[in-house]
């Protein structure tokens, strides 16, 4: 962040002149229809090198295994509070973040272990945070829902549903102010997409031509409320239409599809320096959080079984097996490797010291301590 603070600053009008807006409008008319057509194009034309596919696979497996252990930490009392795993949604973050340029700001909600690992944060530090240890990424003060990394331009990790969306637009505002060409990647859920502040944010992003991608991770459920019970139009990307923001819905279960779409969209946003709204469809295999066990309250076993066939890890494994990138044995090795890595991280984190009592007063302000004592 300090680096960003020191960045060069150019004078540039933020609010576009009326002429410019009207031109923009003209070129974007019919965009929706074009996108619908594009979406219907058959097949996946990606020709990723084998190594890359293996990387995506390993990344997804790392998240899956890490989060299994985070649940173990919760059950065994090493973690507390609210803890949400990304199980079933790994394709979204791996596909998308594989296309992000270094230095691009990223911000997300509380289901955030996946982004952290993909961005390169040390699993030990992340697990330490989940266990409330002094060496946790947020020094034990944030917990599972509040992971941050200035080094990786990862701005959290937020637990108020929808609350971080305006902040995401603000990250892009700074890009515009400075005259940079970063793209901000703003992740939020389908439940969050009902929060009013999102609309305030979309309006500003579009009005001021800010380079931000609104990434709606639609797993068709918000805690225990199914999409059809919380959204008047279940195609939630349509909500960007009235704000003159290009929008579309894509599939999030196939990491290669996500990657292909992400490459196109991010490139477009970097070029146009305009916002974009993408709705990525996925499925949350686990309960809402570690404490939510009764999934039967909102869906059937069949539904889960059906969705299980589209498990993003499974899909990629099938694809790699079909295309000969890996054989069964290779896959097993990956899982085994990762399990060992993560078990080590788990143990290491569990052995770390808790924060010292005096730390409770640190970081309230940048320079002073708050009034102490009860």
């Amino acid at each position, binding site marked *: 962040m300090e680096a960003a603070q020191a960045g060069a600053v150019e004078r540039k009008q933020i609010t576009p002149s009326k002429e410019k807006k009207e031109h923009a409008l003209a070129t974007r008319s019919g965009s929706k229809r074009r996108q619908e057509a594009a979406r219907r194009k058959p097949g996946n034309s990606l020709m990723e090198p084998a190594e890359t596919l293996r990387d995506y696979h390993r990344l997804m497996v790392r998240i899956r295994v890490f989060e299994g252990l985070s649940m173990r930490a919760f059950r065994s009392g090493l973690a507390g509070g609210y803890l949400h795993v990304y199980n079933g949604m790994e394709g979204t973050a791996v596909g998308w973040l594989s296309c992000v340029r270094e230095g691009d700001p990223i911000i997300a909600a509380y289901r955030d272990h996946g982004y952290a690992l993909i961005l390169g944060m040390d699993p030990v530090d992340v697990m330490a945070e989940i266990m409330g240890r002094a060496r946790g990424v947020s020094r034990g003060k944030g917990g599972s829902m509040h992971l941050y990394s200035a080094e990786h331009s990862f701005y959290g990790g937020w637990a108020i549903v929808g609350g971080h969306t305006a902040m995401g637009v603000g990250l892009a505002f700074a890009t515009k102010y400075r005259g940079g060409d970063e793209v901000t990647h703003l992740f939020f859920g389908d439940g969050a997409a*009902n929060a*009013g502040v999102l609309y305030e944010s979309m309006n500003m992003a579009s009005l001021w031509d800010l380079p931000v991608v609104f990434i709606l991770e639609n797993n068709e459920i*918000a805690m225990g*409320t199914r999409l059809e019970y919380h959204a008047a139009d279940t195609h939630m990307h349509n909500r960007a239409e009235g704000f003159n923001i290009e929008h579309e819905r894509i599939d999030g279960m196939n990491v290669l599809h996500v990657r292909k779409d992400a490459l196109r969209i991010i490139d477009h946003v970097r070029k146009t320096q305009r916002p974009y709204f993408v709705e990525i469809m996925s499925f949350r295999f686990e309960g809402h959080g570690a404490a939510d066990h009764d999934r039967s*309250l909102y869906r059937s076993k069949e539904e889960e079984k059906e969705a299980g066939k589209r498990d993003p890890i499974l899909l990629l494994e099938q694809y790699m097996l079909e295309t000969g990138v890996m054989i069964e044995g290779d896959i097993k090795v990956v899982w085994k490797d990762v399990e060992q890595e993560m078990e080590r991280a788990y143990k290491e984190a569990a052995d770390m010291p808790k924060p010292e009592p005096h730390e409770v007063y640190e970081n309230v302000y940048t320079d002073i301590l708050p009034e102490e004592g009860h």
Partner: protein
Amino acid sequence: MTITYRDAIRQALIEEMDRDENVFLIGEDIGRYQGTFRVTQNLYEKYGARRVVDTPITEPGIVGVAMGAALRGLRPVVEMMTMSFSILAMDQIINHVAKMHYMSGGQFHVPMVIRGPGGAAHQLSAQHSHSMEGWFAHVPGLKVVAPSTPADAYGLLKTAIRDDSPVIFTENPSLYAVKGEVPSGVDYADATLPPGSGDESASSDDFTVPFGKAAIRKEGTDISLIGYSRMAHVCMDAAEELENEGVSAEVVDVRSLSPLDSSTIFASVKKTNRAVVIYEDWRFGGFGAEIAAKIQENCFDFLDAPVGRVGGLNVPMPYARNLELLCIPSKDDLLAKAREVLG
């Protein structure tokens, strides 16, 4: 009957919904999902989607919609999944719900209850651990209660639902499992029966707890320990320990923050001549300051020592359990302050 604080709340909801067709519940995940803290368990099955309304995650919208419904004669009971989220609906609550009766010169009133768990639980971190009752007690037009026992939860909620002014009803998540005696003719088992099948007459001899009345939980002569919600229990625990040391502590459970029962508080302090006020919210600028300020204003000549205050540490709630425990006022913190005040 002996039931939990959670069941006492549900029982009050059931009886009031059965008594008055205009009472309905609205909130996030309260219906099909049975409520995040299971307070509304089975109510969706019992009353249906019309009277147990699952909403999108839009706290300002929920409060506003409930208010509009109240203006047409309904009596909404809003569940805030946690009271921390009421911060998002602050404008709706302060500027609209609390003020319409006044701004309309009394033409309209807003009979609604906003209830939900408030205060820290277990490592919910900085954004989910707020004590909001002091904020709301500061706002004219809102009544604010914070029950500590199942009986009070039951009795105060019934009073709240029948009140024609808006009421903030805060529950401490750590109290949900606490059991206690609740006087009522209606059996809790009703919850699973279809509407109308309960004994209607049972609600005639029903039991309510009035607003604006503090409760003396334990009489004493040497010091007054004053708290509400979970802190009332901390006061009881501390009083017990003081008793062992030969100090007779009186425990005042404030129960109703607004209106506040100052006279009961003052009478206690005038008797004991010493007082400690305890509250879970951040100490600096928290509601305990009002109680302390009031006591010294009104009992100055009776005080043998300054009124002590014990509050939460002035920091956002940290996640790590050891740090979190440092923040929440404990029996030991209260004892330390009480001993200081006792001299």
